């Protein structure tokens, strides 16, 4: 059954998707759950998996192309299935006149060969079908093993392939290679062990074999090599260690930050916060439960409460108008492999410190693994950024557009603090002090509001019982 | 020896019988309007039997009933609104609509249950009698069943054990001459089914089932016997059902022997003859009218309750299989 693969719409605001990688070539077999292609959203790149077994018959766009979401980009079908009608349908949707049904890049013979002339398999065939148990299929799929055309000895029920056979096969065939690639390698006497696999789980694909016969390097790589081979010095005489393209995710993030900083007049307000009561409260709370809270969780809660008290701070400048939001979607900046990313806790208005703590943990974990979904890092209404763990005493943050404010949190340090007793006598005590700096977009927020807001946050942090109600 | 019945007693009988009569007529109305799921088996014509027997019972005595059980239930004081709702398959019924006409139970009134299997309730009533004896209470069980049920194995097995073990039970055969279309006289060799008692060594009594006082007298004696530990009695009430086996059954099979059979029985209508008897005792027509009015109100209220009651939620089908078990 032919299946039309479309560019998926992964986020509410996503209208276009960019295809950055095809994991399959036309003619390659596909198993359910295997990644077929990768797309790039404005922050990360995501693998899209096949939803059924079959053969990757035709692709309609190339790596690097962008296309509207929900439009078709490929066809997966049975090896011998006639998909002319499907191709016509897709072309119609894409407004193209491509009538060629034959995949251009694969050697025509191999597509038909891979299924119908499954090599004289010791694996028993029942009516042309490999006899393989559901358990074995599941295990194979989990291990990323494509069974199409594979020669596996079946020792299970009625001579079929069972789990043990899959596991035995895997342990004696550590090299993963697609059947087409295997044939090519065999034909040309190329040792598979020496080939780097670019497919899923390091699987050797046809292109890898092709690359090892005659080196075919991506344009960019060639450029880099050329640059590196030729000029070791910059134009004005500085020795170059490395040239890295300013592109991809880094460029996206960088351009946005630049836009934020250069369009919004940034205004800064600092408060010094005495954390003695908060740290004591936190100690008690953490002692009473499994999930440990961090200082950031309390600051988040204080910020959320203040945003409800001063809803003008919970605004965004969008499309020429100021939107004031009821839902407080609090973003917390975190370092991810691709750069700084701000996942946000949706509808955090009534969430308790512990709930915030739990949700934030999950998001941070995903962020560090590069697995945040667009929904998770878009839609925020205010951001907090904590560099306290690096010991930074003071810093100012750039607003995360289209928000109108951001709170920078610095490290907590013991400092001398003036205390006044009931009689008015002043003395010096040592207190854990922390700087918080609020940045606001002065087009939308004036100084008075900003001052009130950040002072209220300070006050709440210094009276932390309020954070628990 | 004939007992003298007071005006009060007779009025009490009349109230019960009139209520039974009116209840069954309303059930029939529902059937005719297409509002009744399944079928009902009406007690019309047999009112004197249930009334007479149950009037001789104590509050905590047991009765076992049959598919033709509405009469027994009314005479034991079951709530007629919950009965009517159950007959219509509604949530407000005794069994939340899960039992229907043939399976109404009300343990608080000692009603062990109506039973859809002919003869199925007889052993159960017998077991209740054994239980009363076991526990040493003074309770008695009455097992109602039809002429044809007395041909079921369970009848013979039960009455045999009850007789052998002296159980406190009274077996009441409601002989209305027919088991659906089969004439009892064609399939038994004993014109008086009560004679079967001889085979079990217990007394057998034949009673005019259209005369509530005669039924009551015989029942009283038998119940007293049972309660005092002297074992079971078999009472056969000769009676007749006005309608067919179930609602909508034209019962033409009854005319093949005697076209006047039904008419002659209806002349001896138990409700009307009791009414006449009471009036002849110098009771003012007003007292009777008052009873009838009260009954009408109650029956109307029951009808309204049944109609207004909602149908049960489909999820109810999965409950009440076991008392304590999550699985079905």
């Amino acid at each position, binding site marked *: 059954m032919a299946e039309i693969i479309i560019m998926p719409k992964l986020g509410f605001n996503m209208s276009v998707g960019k295809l950055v990688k095809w994991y399959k070539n036309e003619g390659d077999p596909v198993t359910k759950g295997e990644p077929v292609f990768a797309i790039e959203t404005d922050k990360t790149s995501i693998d899209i998996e096949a939803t059924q077994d079959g053969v990757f018959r035709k692709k309609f766009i190339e790596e690097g192309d962008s296309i509207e979401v929900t439009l078709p980009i490929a066809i997966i079908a049975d090896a011998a299935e006639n998909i002319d009608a499907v191709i016509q349908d897709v072309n119609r949707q894409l407004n193209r006149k491509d009538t060629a049904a034959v995949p251009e890049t694969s050697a025509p013979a191999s597509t038909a060969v891979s299924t119908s002339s499954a090599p004289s398999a010791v694996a028993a065939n029942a009516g042309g079908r490999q006899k393989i*148990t559901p358990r*074995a299929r599941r295990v194979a799929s989990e291990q990323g093993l494509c069974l199409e055309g594979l020669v596996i000895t079946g020792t299970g029920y009625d001579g079929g392939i069972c789990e043990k056979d899959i596991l035995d096969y895997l342990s004696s065939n550590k090299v993963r290679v697609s059947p087409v690639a295997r044939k090519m390698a065999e034909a040309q006497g190329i040792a598979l062990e020496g080939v780097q696999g670019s497919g899923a789980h390091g699987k050797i694909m046809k292109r890898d074999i092709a690359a090892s016969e005659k080196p075919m390097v991506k344009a960019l790589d060639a450029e880099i090599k050329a640059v590196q081979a030729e000029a070791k010095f910059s134009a004005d005489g500085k020795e170059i260690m490395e040239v890295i393209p300013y592109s991809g995710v880094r460029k996206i993030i960088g351009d946005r930050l630049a836009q934020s900083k250069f369009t919004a007049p940034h205004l800064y307000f600092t408060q010094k916060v005495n954390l003695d009561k908060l740290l004591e409260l936190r100690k008690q709370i953490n002692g009473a439960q499994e999930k440990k809270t961090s200082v950031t969780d309390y600051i988040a809660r204080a910020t959320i409460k203040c945003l409800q008290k001063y809803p003008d701070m919970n605004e965004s400048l969008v499309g020429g108008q100021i939107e004031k939001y009821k839902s407080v979607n609090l973003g917390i900046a975190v370092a991810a492999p691709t750069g700084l990313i701000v996942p946000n806790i949706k509808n955090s208005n009534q969430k308790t410190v512990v709930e915030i703590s739990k949700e934030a943990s999950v998001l941070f974990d995903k962020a560090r693994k590069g697995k945040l979904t667009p929904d998770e890092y878009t839609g925020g209404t205010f951001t907090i950024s904590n560099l306290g763990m690096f010991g930074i005493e003071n810093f100012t943050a750039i607003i995360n557009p289209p928000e109108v404010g951001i709170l920078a949190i610095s490290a907590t340090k013991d400092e001398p603090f003036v205390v006044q007793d009931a009689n008015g006598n002043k003395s010096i005590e040592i207190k854990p002090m922390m700087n918080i700096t609020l940045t606001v977009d002065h087009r939308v927020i004036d100084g008075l509001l900003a001052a009130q807001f950040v002072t209220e946050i300070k006050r709440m942090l210094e009276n932390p019982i309020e954070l628990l109600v | 020896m004939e007992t003298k019945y007071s005006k009060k007693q007779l009025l009490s009988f009349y109230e019960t019988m009139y209520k039974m009569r009116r209840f069954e007529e309303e059930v029939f109305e529902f059937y005719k309007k297409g509002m009744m799921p399944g079928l009902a088996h009406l007690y019309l014509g047999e009112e004197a039997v249930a009334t007479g027997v149950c009037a001789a019972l104590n509050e905590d005595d047991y009765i076992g009933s049959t598919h033709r059980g509405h009469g027994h239930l009314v005479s034991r004081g079951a709530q007629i609104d919950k009965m009517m709702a159950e007959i219509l398959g509604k949530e407000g019924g005794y069994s939340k609509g899960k*039992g229907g006409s043939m*399976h109404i139970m*009300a343990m608080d009134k000692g009603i062990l249950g109506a039973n859809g299997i002919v003869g199925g309730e007889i052993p159960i009533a017998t077991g209740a009698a054994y239980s009363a004896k076991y526990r040493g209470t003074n309770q008695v069980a009455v097992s109602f069943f039809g002429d044809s049920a007395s041909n079921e194995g369970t009848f013979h097995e039960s009455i045999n054990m009850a007789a052998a073990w002296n159980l406190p039970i009274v077996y009441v055969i409601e002989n209305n001459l027919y088991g659906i279309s089969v004439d009892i006289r064609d399939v038994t060799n004993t014109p008086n089914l009560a004679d079967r008692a001889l085979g079990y060594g217990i007394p057998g009594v034949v009673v005019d089932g259209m005369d509530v006082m005669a039924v009551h007298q015989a029942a009283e004696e038998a119940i007293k016997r049972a309660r005092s530990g002297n074992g079971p009695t078999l009472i056969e009430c000769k009676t007749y059902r006005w309608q067919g086996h179930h609602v909508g059954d034209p019962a033409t099979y009854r005319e093949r022997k005697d076209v006047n059979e039904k008419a002659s029985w209806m002349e001896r209508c138990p409700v009307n003859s009791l009414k006449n008897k009471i009036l002849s005792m110098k009771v003012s027509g007003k007292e009777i009218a008052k009873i009838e009015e009260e009954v009408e109100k109650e029956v109307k209220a029951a009808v309204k309750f049944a109609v207004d009651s909602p149908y049960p939620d489909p999820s109810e089908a999965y409950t009440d299989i076991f008392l304590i078990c999550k699985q079905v």
Partner: protein
Amino acid sequence: MREILYRDAICEALDEEMERDESVLILGEDVAFIGGNFKTSVGLYDKYGDLRVKDTPISEAGFVGMGTGMALTGLRPVIELMFSDFLLVAADQILNNAAKIRYMSGGQVNVPMVIRTPIGAGRSSAAQHSQSLQALVSHFPGMKVVVPSTAQEAKGLLKTAIRDNDPVIFFEHKMEYANKFMIDDVVEPIPFGKANIVKQGTDITIVATSSQVMKSVKAAEALEKEGISAEIIDLRTIVPLDRETIIKSVKKTGRLLIVDEAYERCGIGAEIGAEVMDDVFYYLDAPIGRIGTPNVSLPFSPALEFPIIPSVEKTIAKVKKMMK
């Protein structure tokens, strides 16, 4: 720990429960004076008297129905049917009445009654005295179905059955009555719906009932010598069924064989196989197998009877077939 005959363990359960609760009584043919046809109620008549241990006439429908009436009015009767085949004589009272009364009353009442009856072939009792009718009863809603294996299991499960507030049918195995077992000094009631993993294994799950549990253990010992590791589950109760234990085991082993002595067609193997299929499909390395009594009436001659009833040899052969 002490040694005991299976039938005496049952007798002990009856005795202990009757002592504990006055509302428990026993009825059946020959249960009183001679202590039961299979000697499962020896001594109880002398101890508890005529009203509590009652010899009945041969009227199965009658006295089972009486049991229902007793259960509805405050007692906890334990009715014995001499052979499980005879439950067909009382079928209406069991399946149309006792099992359904709670439901038909909309939950107003419950029927705390136990019916005890032996199943099983192996002593040339022929077609009408050798059947195992657990599949028949399980097919109907409203009856809990218990199939104990060892003497200890029988004693513990019978206690639970008597204390249970719903109708329970308790299938003893007639070939086990005279067998010796080890039993704890104090046996606690064993809960329904919780199967027992009698032996752990990795290659195949064998779900067995009644005496087939013991036979499966023997089969597993022989299979172990050939390198096949079987996990054996004693089902204990068919209704309620412990699905979770079975599913968890099959997910581990990849193979499932159900061994039960009821007729194969529409039997326990078919039921359990279908019941767990949705959950274990992707974990199966072989089709689900079943062993039951073949769809023939049980013959009289030992030469015919023994080759057809489920046995250790049959189980070993079937497991081997499922492994390759």
